[in-house]
């Protein structure tokens, strides 16, 4: 396998991993939303979710650009 083919394969694998990771993220989000729809939500639950939202926003803000 030449260098160009290897680079192509590496890129294909990287894309596959990223695609699956994003799919899993979307799926996990849906599962959590479905769970949250069917149970009583306490103030503590809302506080935890707020913290998770702030952490996600911080990660987004701190992306290398």
């Amino acid at each position, binding site marked *: *396998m030449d260098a160009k*083919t290897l680079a*192509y*394969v590496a*890129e*294909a*694998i*990287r*894309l*596959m991993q*990223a*695609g*699956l*990771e*994003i*799919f899993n*993220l*979307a*799926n*996990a*989000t*849906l599962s*959590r*939303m*479905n769970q*949250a*729809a069917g*149970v*009583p*939500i306490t103030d503590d*639950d*809302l506080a935890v*979710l*707020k913290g*998770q*939202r*702030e*952490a*996600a*926003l911080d*990660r*987004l*803000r701190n*992306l290398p*650009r």
Partner: protein
Amino acid sequence: MRKVLAAIALACLPLAAVGLSACTTQVEQLAPKSPRNALAEAEIAFAGVANIAARLYGMGAIDTPTIGRIISEMQDLSAKLDQAHVLLKAGETLVAVNTIEDLSAALSALSLELSIAAERRVEVEATPAPVIVPAPPGAI
């Protein structure tokens, strides 16, 4: 080998787009729940969309100006979520529900945009690379 791997890679990104579209549909269905459940779902959707946006940016599906705008929009939505928490605590249920509906619609639009970005990345990958034919000896 190359063709098989490329086909698998291209198949994975539409899967991601399908996941995002499903997420959009779910976010759209927030309103009829109790205000607390609706707020919890909106919080989870927000974190999910933020993580997906970060990953899409990491894989090159979103450019720097676009991620800048998305971050700005998400900061606004985060402020709206904070407002919804305050309204709910103050017993302003109706206003809180309206706020949650507004921000869930905005989250839907954002996740749709991310889904389109993922699909666009697939189109870029699907564009065949130009075939370079070496010139015969003595042609140059």
